Every structure is written in structure tokens, then in C-alpha cells.
């Protein structure tokens, strides 16, 4: 290793594209990697890249990625000295962070105490209140029975959001618009929260229905200094799940950026925050409200990395090892505009229902300032056990409009066969004048783009090309690898 690396082994308790991202960061720092994976996650890119792999349990998350003793045992068996939890799964679980320390492992993330203070949405709001940060009206109490929650819904006034106390990402989150189905929605949110995060605890929040989602990347280094690394806008959301994220936000005035950045840092400082985190806000009518804090790496961290020229994953690892990251004189100056979109394995012609199966060709159109974060390649299986995000596409350009143009071309040239993806949906979104003019709120996709796309039909020219392509197509005998080419004729007869 040039200049001496960390020379230790790091376990990755995650899967998919983020596992690949972390493995790469570890390898660049000179660390060995152990991938802790479930039994079905063998044919994945992370599995092929890791130095070692340990199967920690069955395919359901509860048996593997959420199973604390299995993860700890797997990390120790793999000779790891530290665990990176990625995002989702155990990444915001304070008990897990403590279990790591008890087992003599570094947890790459904030302290268990900071997770409890900021990651638990109820505690976080209490802390924010003492700091005088603006909060959305709601209920964060301990009473979790449906009749008590119904009373609170009435008190806050409709529309009301119910959310999982232990998680994010749209899971366990429901919108209550009428008292008639409020009970059913509350129960459903509790079930989803239990299934996704292992705790049925929910809280209630008044719905801001024309708000923008703005978040600040915060970072606490080993010396205790907390900085914010500017903002992202993630207003393009479908059913509360982010689809497209940008850095920086084009909705903030300098004054708002300063105030929100200070609020984000104050909160992180109050919790002695170490490592990467995100403070999320809603912005409506030039007023901002604290939404939640994610005490982990964020899915959309690459857009910040692209405009700021930082490596947040390496910064996390170095901080966990008590090493300095950004130099004391390093100026954090944003440059240009970055956009990320999430590629989901789903059928855009059936309203986005999950699409699973074996991947066919997967090809990303590499180029300058185009970044592809993916966890699966041709021949890998997309299963129904986990989140449907199979990749992220990130582009950077000098201006927002050029980044949008670039993203459209990159998406058009991206090939994912074997499962349906949301790429046609993403292209429709970024071509919408509302999106281009940044007139998007968190409700916009659900209001304007909730209908399934029409199944595209080939025109006469395309049909002719297709017929010719079908004749020229040579089916590999063995799709697994070292493919021998079958004769054109055998393929021809097979497809008759």
C-alpha cells in the first residue's frame, strides 16, 4: 500500500450497490473486506469483489442482515476489526452499535448514544426543541395503541402522516386523509415498521403538502469538529421514497442555506456527532421545519461527493479509526451540479410493482463525470426479499440544465435487460417542465405522475429493425460466462 494503509479487515453488513461502494473505499485505504451476506446473496457483485465472504443466515432480513448476533459472529469469524453497516438494515440501530463495541469491533458510524439521541425521531425532536429548531406539529408519545393514536390524529388535524420511529425510506409510512380509514392505516404502518425495522413504534406528524425536501450533509470528525458539507434537494419522491436527488438545492436563498446549515450543525454538535449524517428539513413558504436526522451514510451521498470533491465513505472509516479527514484548512466549496437517480427493478407499465428475475445484459454508458453505482450484473438474480433498488446513476455537469440533459442521455444509453426498470419513468420525470424549472414538491410525483406509463409500441421502422436484429441475434449457449456462440440457425429455429 502506497504510504501505508490502515491494514485491517472491515466487515460489510449490507448488500447491493452500497456494499460495492464500501468495499471499494476499504480497498483504496488498504483494508481487507469481509462481506456478511444472506444465503441468497451469493450471485452479486459485492460477493465477487470482497476478499472474504461469510454467510450469516437465511434470505429474510430478520434471519441475516437484521440479526445482530449473526452479524457480529460473522464479522469475528471473518477476522474483521470493524463493521460498516451501510444504510438501511442495522445502520441506525443503537443496540447494534453497542453490540459491536462489546465484541471489540469498531462500529463505523456515530456512537450508540448519538444514534439514540438523533436517530430515534422522538428523542431527536425533543433535543431539537430544546435548541429552538422549528418542528412540524405532531405526536411523539409512548402511547402506541390505536385508539390513543386516533385521538392524536384528531387533535393535530388532517391530513396527518404516520411514520416508523425507527426508520426511514418510506417504510412504515402512511398518509391519513380521512378518519374512516385512519385505524387501518395506523395498523398497517405498525406492521410495516415491525417488518422493516424490528419495532412497531410510530409517530404522527401534520402533513405539509406543498413542501420541498432539503437536507444537509453533516460530518463530525475525530477531533469533535462538526461541519456541514452543504445541501441536497430530494423533492422528487414517490410514496415518500426518494427517486431523484440533487446537490446543491436550487431552492435555497443564501440566507436560508446559512440558517438551515447552522441548525443542522447545532443539532449534530449537541449530540457530539461523529461521522457522516444527514439532517432533513421540509421547506414550505420560505419556512423550514426539521424532519429527521439519518445517523448514517445516505443513499444519495454521491451527489454531495461529486459537487464537493469529498469521499464520505472513506471519511467515515478514517473517523472511526480516530484519524483526521478533511484537513484543517480544507475549504469546502461546491462546484457545478450533480443529479442522482435510483434505478428500481419495477414495472413502470404496471404502476411500479416490483419486477424480479435473472438479469440479462447490464451495461452502463461510462464517460466523464458519469458515475454508476450498481450491485448486480448479468446473470445475477433480483429477488423479492429486499429493496428493489438495483443501481444508482449519478451525473455531474457545470450547470443544472446541462446535468439534466446529460442524465437523460445516460439513461437512454443504459441497458438493463431481464427485469423491468423505472428508467422510462425517470426519463419522463426529468423531461417534465415542472422538474426542469424546479417547481417540484414532495407531493408532485404522486399528484402528477402516479398513473402507470403506457406500454410503448414500436413504430414501423423500429419493427423492421427488430425483425432484422432478431435474425442477426446469436444466442450464447451458456449465459453464465465464457459463452460459446450457437449457430445462427439453431437460434433461428428455437425462436420460431
Amino acid at each position, binding site marked *: 500500500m502506497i504510504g501505508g494503509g490502515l491494514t485491517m479487515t472491515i466487515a460489510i453488513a449490507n448488500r447491493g450497490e452500497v456494499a460495492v461502494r464500501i468495499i471499494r473505499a476499504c480497498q483504496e485505504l488498504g483494508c481487507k473486506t469481509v462481506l456478511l451476506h444472506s444465503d441468497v446473496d451469493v450471485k452479486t457483485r459485492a460477493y465477487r469483489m470482497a476478499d472474504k465472504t461469510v454467510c450469516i443466515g437465511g434470505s429474510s432480513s430478520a434471519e441475516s442482515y437484521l440479526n445482530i448476533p449473526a452479524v457480529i459472529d460473522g464479522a469475528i469469524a471473518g477476522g474483521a476489526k470493524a463493521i460498516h453497516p451501510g444504510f438501511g438494515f442495522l445502520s441506525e440501530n443503537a443496540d447494534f452499535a453497542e453490540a459491536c463495541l462489546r465484541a471489540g469491533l469498531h462500529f463505523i458510524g456515530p456512537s450508540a448514544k448519538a444514534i439514540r439521541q438523533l436517530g430515534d425521531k422522538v428523542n431527536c425532536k425533543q433535543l431539537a426543541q430544546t435548541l429552538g429548531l422549528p418542528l412540524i406539529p405532531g405526536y411523539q408519545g409512548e402511547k402506541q395503541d390505536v385508539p390513543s393514536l386516533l385521538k392524536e390524529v384528531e387533535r393535530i388535524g388532517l391530513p396527518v402522516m404516520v411514520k416508523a420511529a425507527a426508520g426511514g425510506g418510506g417504510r412504515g409510512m402512511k398518509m391519513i386523509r380521512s378518519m374512516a380509514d385512519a385505524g387501518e392505516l395506523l395498523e398497517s404502518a405498525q406492521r410495516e415498521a415491525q417488518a422493516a425495522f424490528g419495532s412497531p413504534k410510530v409517530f404522527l406528524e401534520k402533513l405539509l403538502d406543498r413542501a420541498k425536501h432539503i437536507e444537509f450533509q453533516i460530518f463530525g470528525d475525530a477531533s469533535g469538529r462538526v461541519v456541514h458539507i452543504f445541501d441536497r434537494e430530494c423533492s422528487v419522491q414517490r410514496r415518500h421514497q426518494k427517486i431523484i436527488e440533487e446537490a446543491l438545492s436550487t431552492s435555497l436563498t443564501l440566507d436560508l442555506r446559512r440558517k438551515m446549515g447552522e441548525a443542522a450543525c447545532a443539532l449534530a454538535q449537541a449530540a457530539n456527532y461523529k461521522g457522516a449524517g444527514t439532517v432533513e428539513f421540509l421547506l414550505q413558504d420560505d419556512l423550514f421545519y426539521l424532519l429527521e436526522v439519518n445517523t448514517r451514510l445516505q443513499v444519495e451521498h454521491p451527489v454531495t461527493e461529486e459537487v464537493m470533491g469529498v469521499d464520505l465513505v472513506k471519511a467515515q472509516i478514517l473517523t472511526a479509526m480516530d484519524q483526521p479527514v478533511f484537513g484543517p484548512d480544507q475549504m469546502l466549496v461546491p462546484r457545478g451540479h450533480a443529479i442522482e437517480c435510483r434505478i428500481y427493478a419495477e414495472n413502470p407499465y404496471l404502476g411500479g410493482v416490483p419486477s424480479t428475475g435473472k438479469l440479462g445484459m447490464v451495461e452502463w454508458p461510462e464517460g466523464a463525470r458519469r458515475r454508476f453505482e450498481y450491485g448486480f450484473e448479468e446473470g445475477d438474480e433480483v429477488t*423479492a426479499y429486499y429493496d428493489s433498488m438495483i443501481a444508482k446513476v449519478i451525473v455531474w455537469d457545470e450547470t443544472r440544465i446541462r446535468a439534466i440533459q446529460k442524465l437523460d442521455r445516460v439513461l437512454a*444509453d443504459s441497458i438493463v435487460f431481464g427485469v423491468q426498470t423505472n428508467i422510462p419513468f425517470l*426519463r419522463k420525470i426529468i423531461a417534465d417542465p415542472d422538474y426542469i424549472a424546479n417547481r417540484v414538491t414532495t407531493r408532485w410525483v404522486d399528484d402528477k405522475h402516479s398513473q402507470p406509463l403506457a406500454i410503448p409500441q414500436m413504430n414501423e421502422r423500429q419493427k423492421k*429493425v*427488430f425483425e432484422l*436484429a432478431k435474425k442477426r441475434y446469436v444466442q450464447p449457449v451458456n449465459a453464465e460466462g465464457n459463452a460459446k456462440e450457437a449457430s445462427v440457425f439453431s437460434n433461428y429455429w428455437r425462436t420460431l
Partner: protein
Amino acid sequence: MRLRLEVEGQIENVVIQTTGGVHWFSIDGEVFTLPEESSRSQGKKGKGLGGSTIEAPMPGKVTKLLKAVGDSVIAGDIVLVMEAMKMEYSLKAEVTGTLRILDCKVGDQVVLGKRLCQFEVQPEATASEAPT
């Protein structure tokens, strides 16, 4: 495979692959999926005749049944709840009538397109059913 074809004097760059009984074909930045000639059933929408059945719109697990055999349903009623990829999906009756056959139970893993239940449609209700 990537192909560079000349059709009527025009060069076309396309990508094509046949896998799982489906031709995947990318042209002009759009992906088309066409069933192989031998397997026409691919791409069929997960809907029953006249909406008198509910079929699984995706592979996943049945997590809740809100109706039992013999129960009457009104179009729009949630009949069952499925979970896939950690999200819940409520499946609603598209018709008004009576639940006659239930093909699944809570905890079942079901494949895409599996029939989950069937209704006996109440004749006058379907006639007056207005699109919402």
C-alpha cells in the same frame, strides 16, 4: 448483443437479447420486451376476466386477509394485503359481489399472476358501477 444494422439505408445501433422467453430490444433509447413466439403468455396483465378475480400483481407474501369466503364485497374494498420488497400493497376488489374462492392464506409466498381469490359478481352492481 450490440448490433449495428443498416435498414433502408439508415444505420441503427440497437441492443438485443433473448432471455427467459422474452426478446429484450433497445432502440432509440427505449426498451421493448416482446414475448418469444413460443411463449405468448408473457407480459399478460395480472387481471382476471372482468375483474372478478384478484391475481398477484407481483411476487411476494400474503400478509393479511380482510375478507373470508362468503363475505360480500363492494368494489374498492381491500380484500388482502401483500408484502414485497419490504413494502405493503393493498389489493382491492374491482367488483361488487361475494367472495367465493380464496386461493391463498396468510404467510403464503405467491408468484406473479397467481390467482388469489375469485368473486361472484352481483349483476346489477356491475351494471351501475361507475368508473372512479
